[in-house]
């Protein structure tokens, strides 16, 4: 892979993949993110879970540098965000498809890859095969099904082999068989030292994550593995744990 600019060295050793301190984001009177302290070690899969409007997407936008914190700070790979140069080490799959309808799957990938300085065809072919779209490389995104466009969007986020990958609702519209493959690949990426931060409101995917961060109203309700959160709440499932942990302390 070739790049056209200097990139900060990826975090090594004990440097967190992501660290938020007193993070606040307000839109007028709305506190979308309301005082989050978080430190995520590299090489793991983190699930950011919460209902719609809980602040998941805003938190991801703060971490990717697309939004600026009202208060507090966020560092990715030890670099304060926002930082334009660090964006080359970040992969971001947006909640929407984020693909160009008139362009073919290959053209979409080629464009995103070029922006990251990737000019070889091999990484493009690799991610297309990963999302099982190699036989549709010439098909315009407009003619792909909703699930295929999500897969193409994921391929676009992975094409430059990023160190930290933010996936906003990545499996919406993806059929169960392919969802299993997605998670298997996420696991391989984590094993190779990549950090994945996956937002979802689907609790049944939580067990696939190494660690969960439960969000409600812009605050962290709890953090831990799925089993730890269930034990702490004393409930058999995560939905129950989410409700229990959200109750006010007597």
């Amino acid at each position, binding site marked *: 892979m070739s790049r056209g600019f200097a990139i900060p060295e990826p975090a090594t050793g004990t440097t967190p993949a992501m660290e938020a301190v007193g993070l606040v984001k307000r839109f007028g009177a709305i506190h979308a993110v309301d005082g989050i302290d978080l430190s995520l070690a590299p090489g793991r899969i983190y699930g950011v879970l919460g209902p719609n409007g809980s602040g998941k997407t805003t938190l991801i936008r703060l971490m*990717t540098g*697309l939004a600026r914190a009202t208060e507090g700070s966020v560092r990715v790979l030890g670099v304060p965000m*926002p930082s334009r140069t660090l964006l080359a080490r970040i992969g971001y799959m947006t909640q929407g498809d*984020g693909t160009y309808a*008139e362009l073919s799957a290959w053209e979409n990938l080629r464009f*995103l890859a070029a*922006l990251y300085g990737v000019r070889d065809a091999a990484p493009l072919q690799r991610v297309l095969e990963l999302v099982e779209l190699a036989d549709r490389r010439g098909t315009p995104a407009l003619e792909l099904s909703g699930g295929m466009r999500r897969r193409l969007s994921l391929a676009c986020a992975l094409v430059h082999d990023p160190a930290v990958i933010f996936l906003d609702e990545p499996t919406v519209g993806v059929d169960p068989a392919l969802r299993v493959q997605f998670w298997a690949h996420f696991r391989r990426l984590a094993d190779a030292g990549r950090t994945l931060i996956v937002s979802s409101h689907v609790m049944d995917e939580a067990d696939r994550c190494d660690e969960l961060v439960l969000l409600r109203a812009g605050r962290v309700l709890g953090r831990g593995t799925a089993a730890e959160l269930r034990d702490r709440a004393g409930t058999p499932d995560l939905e129950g744990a989410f409700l229990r942990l959200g109750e006010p302390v007597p």
Partner: protein
Amino acid sequence: MNPWRVVALARRIVDQFLRDHRSLGLIFVAPLVIMALLGWVLRDSSAPSPRVAIVNLDVASAPSERVRGALTEAIRQAALPLVEVGADEPAADAALRASAVDVVILLPVGFGAGLADGDPPPLVIVTQGVRGTDDNAQVEVVLRQLAGALPLPPGTASILRRSVFGPPFIAGPPDALASFAPALIGYFGFFFVFILTAISFLRERVGGTLERLLATPIRRAEIVAGYSLGFAIFTTIQVVLILAFSLSGWSTPDGWDGPRVAIGLGIPSAGSPLLAFLVVLLFALGSVNLGIFLSTFARTELQILQFIPLVIVPQGLLGGVFWSIESLPAALQPVARVMPLTYAVEGLREVMVRGADLASRTLQLDLAFLAGTAVLFVVLAGATIRREVV
């Protein structure tokens, strides 16, 4: 600035357009079709043959009666239909209202006495007043027949000697398109490119692709440059096509047995096509970035179309396409003077009609203004692409 990213973005825009055949048609074919239609209408419309009535209200005057006779003879000589509508103004008015006549020439009371004094009141020419363009054309036909027909004193000559044709800077026969074409070329250089850029960038904003784009290392300046480059490619082709179609012309030779076919308008141009190209290109580059900037204020493609009456039509009305800036009401002239289309139209007329080159102060001003607004719109467009990273 990383040129690879700029080229990648420009290439993406080219790829998108090449797959969108309708937009290609809009940007390349539509201007030529409209130019061809206008050329056809302006050049080949049949000359009107208005029905004319002459009413002498100054009945007691022998000189007036002689003038009436001379006018009548001139109309007959021109083979225009002469209509009797009565001897007074109400009768003439009724005939016009009933559409029994197209043009009435009134010799006012006191005309004969005025002739004797050398200061006659002007002849009054009345039309139906329903279609202004038709009325003007009919009056022109009548005046052309009357001009020179009468040895009239100076007071009446002023209304009879009106020249219709003839930019004196262009050799050859007069051409109704010659003075109008530069305005049209300028207008098309703006209209289609503005609409397409605005919609294209709106899609980028609302479709989630801008969010993804901004999460890559691309800089705002590179986005603006990539868009400008991508659209400049199409704009350049569009301008070359319009200029080639307008300025060159081929038709089946005389004596050809088959149907007469003409391709291109063959409009005479006094100046350099390259300079005309430069004027339109600068204008179009500004329009691309105006489109990016204004797309911020729209949420849907329908809202982009709402910019047509707000941005495009006022420039078309005030920018010198139909009326000169000097003839506009005083309050509107400063407005016209800040509109880019004004300078594009003026610059194109300077080049194509007056044959101006870069030594012309007017053309220098036009080019400077267009370049200045292009830079301004580039800055404004860049400012609307928000990412909170440097």
